[in-house]
């Protein structure tokens, strides 16, 4: 019952948020809903930890049924969604804040609901609905900032996401035609390497890759993130991009094993490597803060793809390590990227301009913001003791175990590249330019929410076992 609550509660909150903002009860209601969401997610997380996966089935006739499964990975990402969602909503101010239009709250809650649906969904129909609605909600949120560039970016993103889900639909149809079932666990048993499965799987992968901004198809992401509202780009970069990758992982685990001897794993890993190199090099060349962070998202998605071939290793322990590494990387990147985007927003409001060269002297007047940037940066770089490092350690030891030294080297070298552009920001902040003491400080609540997110990455780095214990036996 609690599993459906994860989706129902945000939906209810979305409806309630339609109330006019001036209503005196509006703020307490929002806080109450947020607290409820946190409590529910934690309770479910502990329950899954204690009793294992919770499964809900709705029969759809003729042997097929609608499945929602709350396993370790789903709960971890639900936790991530809850944390980032809470931080973003708190960050955008529960009371009156001019920057954010009223439509943001209902859309945000809707986004959280759909995200939880995607995490929990284990059959093609649910996943199709989740991924599709997610795209539409994201497009709608992108237009909130009202700038023409945002509109153009939103349109471009709309066409991309529609095309992607079209391919996904055809893929699902092909698979259903072949095996007569939509549920992933059932497919896992019967899947075999034949033409129909191959094309269906390829179409689905391509569609999801387009929605997840994987390397060659990442064109729409930078413009979308740079021009959207700050909370929107936080939610999008931290969660929405990951949803598509998560669905890719779900499909990969069910359909990829028969194809493990083909060149697919190699292609996925090389796409990941290219994404890391491409994203980092371009992030280094950016002069505007938000664009730099956007390009960093493209780069970091590359890490997730690197783990895909490792999931097909023959030794179950190595597969589990890769699985844990992948989920932990999603968790670490989600938190760190959200914190980084918030900090970018604060720096822009503080210095009044989006350009990186204007950051001179901020380290003296915005110490907490710089500390958050540092902590988030450490996790993105994969430096100990952050969660990013723990993820990199898990994935690298899995790669080493299965003899894939190249991917291990890419993982480690990738950390250096991300260090390059993170420290480019810090270097500008440390520069002592002409005396400039008038910095428009963002409200304390916003700074604290960003700091808490980056602190989480540090805490998750120091104690990884609570989260990893849920992911035991994931990909086996």
């Amino acid at each position: 019952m609690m599993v459906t609550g994860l989706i129902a509660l945000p939906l209810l909150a979305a409806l309630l948020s339609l109330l006019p903002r001036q209503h005196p009860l509006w703020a307490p209601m929002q806080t109450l809903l947020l607290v409820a969401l946190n409590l529910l997610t934690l309770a479910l997380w502990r329950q899954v930890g204690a009793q294992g996966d919770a499964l809900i089935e709705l029969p759809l006739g003729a042997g097929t049924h609608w499945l929602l499964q709350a396993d370790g990975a789903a709960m971890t990402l639900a936790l991530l969604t809850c944390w980032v969602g809470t931080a973003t909503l708190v960050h955008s101010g529960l009371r009156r804040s001019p920057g954010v239009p009223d439509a943001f709250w209902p859309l945000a809650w809707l986004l959280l609901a759909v995200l939880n649906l995607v995490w929990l969904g284990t059959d093609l129909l649910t996943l199709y609905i989740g991924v599709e609605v997610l795209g539409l909600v994201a497009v709608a949120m992108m237009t909130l900032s009202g700038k023409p560039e945002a509109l153009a970016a939103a349109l471009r993103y709309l066409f991309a996401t529609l095309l992607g889900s079209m391919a996904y639909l055809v893929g699902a149809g092909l698979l259903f035609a072949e095996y007569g079932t939509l549920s992933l666990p059932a497919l896992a048993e019967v899947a075999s390497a034949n033409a129909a499965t191959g094309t269906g799987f390829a179409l689905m992968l391509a569609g999801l890759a387009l929605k997840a901004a994987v390397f060659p198809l990442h064109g729409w992401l930078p413009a979308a993130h740079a021009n959207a509202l700050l909370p929107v780009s936080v939610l999008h970069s931290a969660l929405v991009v990951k949803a598509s990758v998560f669905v890719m992982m779900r499909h990969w685990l069910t359909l990829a094993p028969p194809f493990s001897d083909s060149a697919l794993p190699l292609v996925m890993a090389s796409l990941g490597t290219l994404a890391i190199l491409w994203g980092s090099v371009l992030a280094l060349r950016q002069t505007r803060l938000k664009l730099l962070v956007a390009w960093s998202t493209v780069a970091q998605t590359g890490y997730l793809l690197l783990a895909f071939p490792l999931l097909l290793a023959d030794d179950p322990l190595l597969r589990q390590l890769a699985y844990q590494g992948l989920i932990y990387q999603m968790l670490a990147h989600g938190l760190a990227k959200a914190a980084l985007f918030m900090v970018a927003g604060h720096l822009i409001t503080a210095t009044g301009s989006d350009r990186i060269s204007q950051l001179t002297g901020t380290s003296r007047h915005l110490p907490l913001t710089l500390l958050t940037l540092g902590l988030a940066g450490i996790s993105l770089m994969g430096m100990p003791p952050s969660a990013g490092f723990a993820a990199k350690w898990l994935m690298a030891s899995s790669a080493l175990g299965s003899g894939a030294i190249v991917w291990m080297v890419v993982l480690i070298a990738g950390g250096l590249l991300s260090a390059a552009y993170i420290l480019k920001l810090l270097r500008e902040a440390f520069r002592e330019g002409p005396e400039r003491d008038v910095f428009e400080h963002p409200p304390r609540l916003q700074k604290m929410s960003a700091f808490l997110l980056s602190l989480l990455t540090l805490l998750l780095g120091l104690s990884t076992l609570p989260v990893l214990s849920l992911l035991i036996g994931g990909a086996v």
Partner: protein
Amino acid sequence: MSVTDVWMIAGGGLMLIGLTGFLFARHLLRRLLAFNITGSGALLMVLALSGNDRGLAPALLVLTGMLVALGATALGLFLLRLWQQQSGHTDLPPPPDPDLDP
């Protein structure tokens, strides 16, 4: 050639037409229409593929597909009109240059 094959070919043809329109149309409305055509083609393809007496699943799949296409078109039209009002163009400008580091 069985009935499913006919539907298959029709669906495939529709998708091809839609895709080419999607590629070459510059006008946003045309692209949206092209998308609708490909959508219906794909739905047709899915129905044809799944054949009959396969239970509720394919129907549900197609139903959601249609709903989603409807929602998407509505959103697209709304944005399209907003874009037309704001920028006066009916087609999308080339993507902004990723600006060079001075």
